[in-house]
């Protein structure tokens, strides 16, 4: 009996693993099933810190429990997954092991934009995603800040929120720089190129909200009041000399650009049109991109005129 015990030898283990796919995306989970036969199973996924070839240089494997291990890769590349199956007996004096390996390719083809924003003085203004290609930034010409109304420049830094860190961004063919200011007066062609080489084109449009450059009624000049919370809404509150017929006023106004149009309800207004100001009137501005007539932005100005 004792002799038999001393002679005990480990049985030969077999190492075998199955993985559903051999091509993964970054951060995609893979499940490794151990399908061999062994007492102890360790898997080296092959990425930094877990490389089988470097096992004598402090790289480690991951212990497999219940024949199941899930893992994911953080960076794209090709990895050699090595599975080491071991049996031992006789208090570790007899050890037999077997290895097998599989190659896994991890790709990163992300060309998706989550968010785009630009800074308007102190505010982060987010672009609106219009469709799969077009993004629109709507900026005010001026912002109310405490008691002043500083102008907002169209030359601003642009910030991209992209899920993958290895994706490259190009603006008008040149490398995107997070610290440079871009002239938003023009439409920019944005190109995203993934680590895998796939690319996607986007257009970044910028429009200013429409507003009156000047507004005059019955010889009195109106002044725009802004709110700090909503850039697409303004008010003009003015008093005209007593005795003025409010039902038939013909305000003279100018706009900033030729792509701005102004409406009351759905009727387009031009300077000198007769309007009934008994009740406050809401002017609606529509500014259309000169590069793409389908892209436009709306704003509102509520004009209240009363007699002194």
């Amino acid at each position, binding site marked *: 009996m004792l002799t038999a015990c001393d002679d005990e030898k480990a049985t030969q283990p077999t190492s075998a693993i199955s993985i559903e796919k051999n091509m993964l995306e970054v951060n995609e989970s893979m499940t490794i099933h151990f399908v061999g036969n062994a007492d102890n199973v360790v898997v080296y996924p092959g990425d930094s810190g877990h490389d089988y070839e470097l096992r004598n240089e402090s790289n480690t494997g991951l212990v497999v429990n219940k024949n199941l291990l899930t893992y994911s890769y953080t960076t794209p590349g090709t990895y050699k997954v090595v599975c080491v199956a071991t049996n031992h007996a006789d208090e570790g004096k007899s050890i037999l092991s077997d290895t097998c390996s599989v190659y896994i390719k991890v790709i990163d083809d992300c060309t998706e934009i989550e968010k785009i924003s630009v800074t308007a003085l102190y505010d982060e203004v987010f672009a609106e995603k219009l469709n799969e290609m077009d993004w629109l930034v709507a900026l005010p010409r001026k912002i109310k800040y405490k008691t002043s109304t500083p102008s907002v420049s169209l030359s601003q830094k642009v910030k991209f929120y992209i899920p993958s860190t290895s994706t490259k961004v190009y603006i008008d063919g040149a490398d995107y720089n997070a610290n440079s200011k871009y002239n938003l007066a023009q439409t920019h062609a944005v190109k995203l190129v993934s680590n895998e080489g796939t690319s996607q084109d986007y257009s970044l449009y910028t429009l200013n909200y429409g507003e009156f450059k000047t507004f005059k009624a019955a010889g009195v000049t109106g002044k725009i009041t802004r709110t700090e*919370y909503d850039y697409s809404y303004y008010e003009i509150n003015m008093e005209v000399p007593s005795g003025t017929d409010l039902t038939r006023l013909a305000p003279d106004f100018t706009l900033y650009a030729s792509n701005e149009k102004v409406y009351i309800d759905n009727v387009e207004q031009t300077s000198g049109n007769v309007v009934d100001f008994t009740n406050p009137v809401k002017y609606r501005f529509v500014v259309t991109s000169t590069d793409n007539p389908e892209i436009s932005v709306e704003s509102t100005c509520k004009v209240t005129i009363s007699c002194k």
Partner: protein
Amino acid sequence: MISVMALSGAMITLTGCNDFLDQEVLGNNTDENFYDTKYKLQSALNATYDVLQTDAFQSADWRFGEATADNVIGTDEGLASDQGQLVHFRFTTSNRWIKERWEINYKGIHRANQVIANIDRCRLSTNDYAAYREIREILGQAKFLRALYYFNLVKTFGGVPIRPEVEEVSKLVVPRSSLADTYAYIEKDLREAIIMLPNRYTSAQSGKASAGAAAALLMKVLMYQARPGDGSEKWQQLAEIGEYFVKGKSMQMKDMLCYPERYKDTDWESIRKRLWFKPQELNVGTDPYETPETECPVLLNAYSLRYLSAYNAPITYDQQFYLDGEFCQGSIFEIVFKESGDGTTDDVNEGSNIYSRLFSRDSDIFADDQIINNIYGSDIRRSFTIGHHQFTPDMENTDIGAGRILSLKWYTPIKDRPVYTDDNGKNRRILRYADVVLMYAEALNEIGKGAEALEQLNSNKSVVNQINNSSTLYIGGGYGYLRDQIWKEREIEFAFEWDRFFDIVRQGRAKQVLTTFANLHSNKRGLYFREGVNEVFPIPQTEVDLSNGVVTQNPGY
């Protein structure tokens, strides 16, 4: 003859033996007969609260909510330990702390389920309305606690298995519910708890979870389901609860429960009976009858932003976190710690993490000058942090190590110190009224009500300004500017309260914040945070293993 006698003798012996074994042991409590009085239900509820006091619960909270984020440096950030791997986001799915957080919260859930599943075993000795209300309040608190434990799990792991209220040995493996289903389950518990509980418990009842606590937690649960700028209806719902809580807008029970939409085919009376409102047929005399149109408890003015103690005496900002400020007007829910009364010195179940571990020379986590400057700037609340060899409010010379800065929120004044070293002399604040106001402000900004958001934001800041007669207020601006200011105020107000990591995750900027932090530190902690993966932690490997894969792993692990 002899053999027959021997046989019958043996038979008699056997019979006697059987009878003896078959005797029912009288007087033993079993889960079948235990929960029949309100006292026994109360002790089961106490056991549910008890989990909050465990070291494991505190430890899981600071390790995940604070040590992984950008307001502290850890003593143990080496990659050799489970803690170091956790905070570097270089852990395996077998990490000890991940498993402990999972287990301690499920322990709480199991105990809450014991109360909820057995509540109907209770027999009342009177037909008084008050007797029903007592049971209802026990049930309501158990629902609040269950929601709190599930919320801890869902914000850490994503959708989790919803345990059945009555566990069966043959059905111990429960698959994970979706994120939306888990949140819906939590929301239902909280909305029901709000209508079942009084607005606030005071004096001898202080410490019990009230309707205020349930509403505050509900707001947080709604906020965590929405994302900044996503236009989600959760922001709208959050603003409605905020209006009810802060502005005193009346809210009917049916609006709180979303009845009947969320209660297919269940009539009002069945809901009432399940929640231990006195059944209609037993109502007599002046007993109130709650209809769907009955108003929810009034929360307006139940809590306050001002620094006032439970007895409305003025206290200082830091006293809000000491014994003087327990159940103060700004505190909605706290974990109640009490010194052991039995004279034992080795009871480690009473929050020693808070008392002796964090505010000490070898604190697990601490801040430094750069962090403090980054959080507070010139805000007066930075004066409630303390450095090495500076004097505490009760003139104690601190000895915490050169260069280290700790928060006075972790400090226990000398007069509040427990007799036994492993105890804790003060309660831990979990939900504060300032949080309610700032969540309301954030929701208002998200639904395009910037001016009202600013009013709420400044309501907290103007109370802070009274500390040093400052007049600095936040300034109106566009959506992005207001949002950034609200987040800044949250960071300052709730700094070192162990919630920072979850806050930056739900704001969707954990990667950005942690990368900035990592680049300022030589060990680059935070740089390994993977966007889209590390917002939730992995399900503990043992759960995946024991369920043979029925409990699935989170993506990216």
